[in-house]
């Protein structure tokens, strides 16, 4: 199971990288979002994958590792904030510079 998830994480990171290398800011933002999904899953895997053992003390041991979950919980929310921020950044870029294309925005000499 871990192998499978690790493989999927690899695919997510590969796709994220591909999108980051593209010119449109929207694609770049989607790429970042894929990265954060991949990173969250990677944290999850690092704690070991257990089926049906949520870390709720009402159900009895053994439990899944709660620490990665706590870390991921905040990471999900933060990455939402980052995505929102990036989207607004792109939107303002369009407004001020007239384009979302990073190649068109490329600065000249100095």
């Amino acid at each position, binding site marked *: 199971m871990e*192998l499978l998830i690790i493989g999927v994480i690899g695919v*997510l990171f590969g*796709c994220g990288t591909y999108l980051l*290398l593209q010119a449109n800011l*929207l694609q770049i933002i989607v790429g970042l979002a894929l990265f954060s999904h991949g990173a969250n899953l990677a944290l999850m895997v690092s704690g070991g994958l257990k089926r049906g053992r949520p870390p709720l003390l009402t159900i009895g041991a053994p439990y899944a590792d*709660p620490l990665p979950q706590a870390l991921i919980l*905040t990471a999900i929310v933060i990455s939402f904030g980052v995505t929102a921020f990036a989207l607004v950044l792109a939107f303002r870029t369009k407004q001020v510079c007239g384009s979302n294309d990073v190649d068109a925005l490329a600065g000249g000499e100095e």
Partner: protein
Amino acid sequence: MNVPFLLSILIFLPFFSAAFPFSGRLRRTVGPFATAIPAVQCLILSTLWPDVRNGGKLLAVWTWLPDLGLRLGLALDGLSWLFACLIAGIGVLVFLYTASYLQDDPHLPRLYRFLLLFNGSMMGVVFADNLILLSVFWELTSIASFLLIGFRAQRPAACDGATKALLLTAAGGLVMLLASFLVFAQHHTFDLSVLLANSASLPLVIGLCFLAGAFTKSAQFPFHIWLPSAMEAPTPVSAYLHAATMVKAGLYLVARLSPLFAGDPLWSTAIISIGGLTLLWGGVVACKQTDLKALLAYSTVSQLGLIMLLLGLRTETAFLAALLHIVNHAAFKGALFLTAGAVEHATGTRNLHQLGGLWTAMPLTTVAALLATLSMAGLPPLGGFVSKELFYEAALGTAPWFAAVAVAASVFTFLYSFLLFYGVFFAPPGERPHAHETPLGMLIPIMTLSGFALAFGLVPPFAGGLIDPAMTFLCGRPTHSHLALWHGLTPALGLSVLTVAMGGAVFLWRDAFIPSLRTRKAPYSFDQAYSDGVSSLNAFAVRLRTRYMTGHLGDYVAYLMVALLLGIGLPLWWFYRHTPFILDIAPAERYEIGLALLMAIGGIGCCCFRARVPLVLSLGLVGALVSIFFVLFSAPDLALTQILVESVGIVLFLLAFRFLSPIERKPVAWGKRSLQLALSVGSGLLVTLLLLAANIGQLYPSVVAPFYLSNSYLLAGGRNVVNVIVVDFRGYDTMGEITVFSVAALAVFAMIRLGPKGNPGPIDHPPPLPPSVILRAIARLTLHLMLLFSVYLLLRGHNAPGGGFIAGMLTAVAVILQMVAFDLRTFIQEIPWNPLRIVMAGLAVSASTGLGALCFGYPFLTSAFGHFHFPLLGEVELVTAALFDFGVYLVVVGTTLGIIRTIAED
């Protein structure tokens, strides 16, 4: 008195005084105030004389970084005392002089600040016992010198001179720092006193690195080029830093380290050859100069070379000559520089062609300058004569040809001394005869310095008293030098007579060669080499930068990825290429494989779709599948959070779309496309490999998890361990996290509402959809249900899946659903005030919960809980962490709604 205290006063008093505000009426007092600082230093130093006179050595050590063996040590001995006396003594005179020299300069306080900064740093250099501390102060003097040379920053020459001095001396300082680390690597200490006490001997490599620092600082050939350029500094600065003190730091370093290289003939050879070359070169070039300060600068170069050479000879006579000449040079060169300043002050020029005949207008200055000149030329009965005699004695003790070099150098010294003096005061008047006597404030320092130059000759024991303690350090035993003007008929006296005769002859026939020497232009100079070097380095840097700094974001990402692949991927593959990956593989169910494949397809879909809606739906698919995996792998909290965030995220993307330009399919070069693909595949593989390596066999079971699991209920009263970690165990983290999250809302708000609007360009407004009755009905119906459920999630969070994040997101989703179903106005009706206020309220609640713990004497964010029995409700558990969680809830609601509303409104 307490010596450590006095030493720190010596070093830090100027630093603190430099920060004193001299504005308004206080501005007038800056001169006397600043002059008082070195005067206090002089007093302190005089009280310390009994401690050092018999070769005493005092250490003051404070612990600095004990783990690294770093001690903050200050040491007082004869050598540092002598240099400190120079710094403080010349300091008093120069500070006094400056006040009247730059009387009307509006930036006078700034000049004094820099001078004080220099004074303190220089004191630090001579008292530092720790090599690192020494380097710090050493570089500080370079910085002070930079600031002082560039004091008239509106002049390009001043900026160039300042930069040149800084580049050369700071570079030397860095090499010196390297030497210090090499010393530590070998002897495990940075303390000079320890090295000296163990009579450690250091290898030549270290010695050469130290010499690089000393030679650049003391303007030795071929690094001397910065000193003439440094003459752009105001004249008192030149007298203080670039004649009397800072340039002697290199000499101090060589003298200080001398015992450590006692057994190394190459160390001496290096110093003697460079010093000798500098002595001759500086002397010859000085004769060419027509600018007073340039002449003095080259003469300083030459004299520094002389002292360096003497330190390299390492005989007792040579050491004595070196120390005496350090003192002499400070006196006569200081006086001459200050005279040059006075002449410029009086006539407005420093050009020898324009000057002449000033002795009638400035008789007192002339007398003072005459004494200094005689001392520089090495004539009796001045101090310079005594040190030159000693120089000859030391040279005669070495080799005959060496004595010849010494005489030749002294002839040049004689020549330029009188070229200067005669040219200014007695030559036929040039174009600017108008002059006036030097004002008293400037005259007193000049006459004092000349007086010292005379006193060192007439009263040799006076000079002896100053330098004997330092001799003790250099010779390794207490010495009492027997300095005298008259040594009897010695060979050295013969050489002196010869020097005067030759020098006089050359001076009389000067017209035969000086004019042609002055007009001759060197085909290529070291200055030229320096500026060529700097400009070609700049050109190279520009060329290099324009090659790789393309301005295209994609290129930079590609660099990062290549660096990651090479830097992490290769070693990873190398280390693990034979390791079998043992994984705790729960066999994957068929549906799980299906889900994983679907997720991969979603990811690839994100790459392939150009149309924006399918793109975002693909991203949403990935997010939804992630939350399913969270469900499968025992993370209910994560699954809830993820699915809610994903819904809000989709709305966000759809809202933002209207404003973003569509993704065009642009033709991309085949090579670039394949590079992108290769990098993507590579980074995917890299992450896979990294994770495989990190998860090999789960070798390290978590030690943290059992703690949380077993203490969650005991310490925090919660059964949902994830939530307990978030709001209690790692509450600090969460506090920071919600702060960051709310900053995102603020930033979004600021970016949209503030700043230039620019040209929005065409916005493709979709045609308004007909209102969906079903959606509206459902939205109406579910609003209160969802809100109620979110409150439930919030309350039960401590013991069951839920909590502030999830509940907050759910509340936001409920409100956003209304907005989607109805319109923005409905949204604003639901939340009539600015959501940012909710954010602030939430932060305040969380923070004050944490601070509440402080009131009860517990660390920030400690939670308390208790179980209470209420009638009707039964057993109820109250946890302060729930209050904290409520703050989180408010922040999440406020931030999410704030972001969505800000974007939607625009």
